[in-house]
């Protein structure tokens, strides 16, 4: 029976901020149960929050995300940080119950005094983030944890809720997705600041990373906007973790921390600064697939030069070519015209992918590095702007090799759209 004394939640909040872990755990439960005074306590703590770097880690079940989170934990602990993990698992639609098993992969690090792991069930909320989990992030922040991982199961567009909560968003992909890469494009891929291809020891991992990089580059991107990076990671031997850490750090350096609070205060401005989020997802137009294939099949020059289509989208295209004797100039290097043809092919396919015939009326190219016989070149075309009659495209040509990609050439082109 309560007296005029303040609610339990308030007392717990004070103790939690003073370092009492038990009080913090109890407060999280009260918030989850919507106990009297819990919301006020949570709001009060939210005002003290804003220091922690909140990293969202999302991935389909079996993608290896928990193992990756454990690896991140290890790395941060070694650097002397305090880390909280908010691990969210889906709840059963039938019973409402859940098995919360993300901790399983973090057994060794979970024992460290500087780590606090709390598991939540999504409780059927869309976006995979329960209200209580979001409040937990603020509580951990206010209590002095300088790194907070929010781990959720990503199954599609519902995971965009993590966008507003996390400062840096890592999406974990298992290798060998193949056509499924297309499937996850809608929603999950678009929220990624960094894509981590897990199980890097498997042979398919490198290929999956390449496919993902291609997909990421096809998305429209304003200048200065964050370019999502794809990294191959193997949690078993730690390879790729440094690269992952660097990519994440780079993102943090660019965009800072505490953005969820900005979002709360000014949602419109927040959306503009939250990297590469698609504010309203475009309807999925699949017609490009058939069009690009048909166009490429008819193209005489592509056949002559061995230019093959790798992928595409509505307003985008990726083509590739391996340089051989056909493409060489009198000095033995790759003929500029061959590179131009490659870029121009991507340009043509991208601008014609919507259907109406588009003819090039202007094109410019710069050559940045020499290309030799045997090199594999990849040209990626993206649509910069398109109105009813005019379209502008940018094409990047890179040399693809085992360790990554080297820029080779930049091409811009303008088309006149008929019809």
């Amino acid at each position, binding site marked *: *029976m309560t007296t005029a004394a303040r609610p339990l939640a308030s007392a717990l909040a004070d103790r939690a901020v003073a370092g009492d872990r038990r009080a913090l755990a109890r407060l999280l439960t009260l918030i989850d149960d919507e106990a*009297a005074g819990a919301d006020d306590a949570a709001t009060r703590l939210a005002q003290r929050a804003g220091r922690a770097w909140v990293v969202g880690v999302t991935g389909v079940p079996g993608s290896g995300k928990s193992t990756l989170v454990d690896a991140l934990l290890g790395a941060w602990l070694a650097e002397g940080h305090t880390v909280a993990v908010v691990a969210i698992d889906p709840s059963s639609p039938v019973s409402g119950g859940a098995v919360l098993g993300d901790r399983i992969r973090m057994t060794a690090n979970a024992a460290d005094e500087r780590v606090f792991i709390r598991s939540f069930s999504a409780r059927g909320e869309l976006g995979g983030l329960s209200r209580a989990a979001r409040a937990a992030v603020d509580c951990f922040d206010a209590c002095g944890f300088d790194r907070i991982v929010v781990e959720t199961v990503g199954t599609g567009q519902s995971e965009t809720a993590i966008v507003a909560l996390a400062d840096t968003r890592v999406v974990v992909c298992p290798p060998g997705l193949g056509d499924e890469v297309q499937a996850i494009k809608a929603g999950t891929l678009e929220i990624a600041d960094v894509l981590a291809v897990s199980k890097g020891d498997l042979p398919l991992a490198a290929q999956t990373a390449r496919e993902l990089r291609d997909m990421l580059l096809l998305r429209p991107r304003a200048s200065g906007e964050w370019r999502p990076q794809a990294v191959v990671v193997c949690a078993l031997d730690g390879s790729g973790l440094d690269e992952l850490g660097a990519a994440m750090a780079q993102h943090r350096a660019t965009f800072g921390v505490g953005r969820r609070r900005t979002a709360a205060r000014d949602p419109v401005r927040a959306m503009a600064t939250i990297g590469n989020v698609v504010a309203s997802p475009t309807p999925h137009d699949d017609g490009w697939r058939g069009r690009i294939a048909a166009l490429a099949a008819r193209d005489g020059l592509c056949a002559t030069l061995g230019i093959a289509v790798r992928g595409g989208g509505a307003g985008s295209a990726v083509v590739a070519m391996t340089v051989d004797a056909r493409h060489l100039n009198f000095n033995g290097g790759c003929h500029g015209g061959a590179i131009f043809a490659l870029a121009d092919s991507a340009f043509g396919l991208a601008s014609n992918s919507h259907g109406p015939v588009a003819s090039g009326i202007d094109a410019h190219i710069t050559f940045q590095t020499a290309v030799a016989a045997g090199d594999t070149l990849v040209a990626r075309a993206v649509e910069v702007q398109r109105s009813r009659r005019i379209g502008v495209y940018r094409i990047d040509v890179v040399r693809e090799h085992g360790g990554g990609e080297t820029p080779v050439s930049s091409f811009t082109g303008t088309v006149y759209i008929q019809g």
Partner: protein
Amino acid sequence: MNDPAPAGFRPRVLVTKIGLDGHDRGSRIVAAACRDAGMEVIYTPPWQSIAAVVKLALEEDVDVIGISSLATDHLIVPKLVAALRDAGLGEVRVVVGGIVPEDEARALVADGVRAVFHPGSTLDDITTRIRDYAGETRRARAGAEDGR
């Protein structure tokens, strides 16, 4: 004052194994049954240390800890009960399921274990009683916290 354990509340249950044994067919089945009964279950692999279980129970604010013991690992459950008490988690109910001889089961209860489930217990029986014990934990906790 809200009833800390109203009809629809979701018990938070830890299902784990301490000691040396690794057979977990039973504990996995019980964990799944608890989920199907609407509870939130934190499940760990076997071979957890007592310290790890206490830390987990604290962070996850669990209502009931279920220890599966098929060999003799129940013999160190009293150490777990004591460690919970020392950490201020004395109100958390601990139950043991598995193969426990009668006299040792009686000793466990005397040492603070809430109940021992023997082979032959049905899943319905186990989940119903775990829910009841979770309610006991919440009421005991509320009572203690009310005094602050």
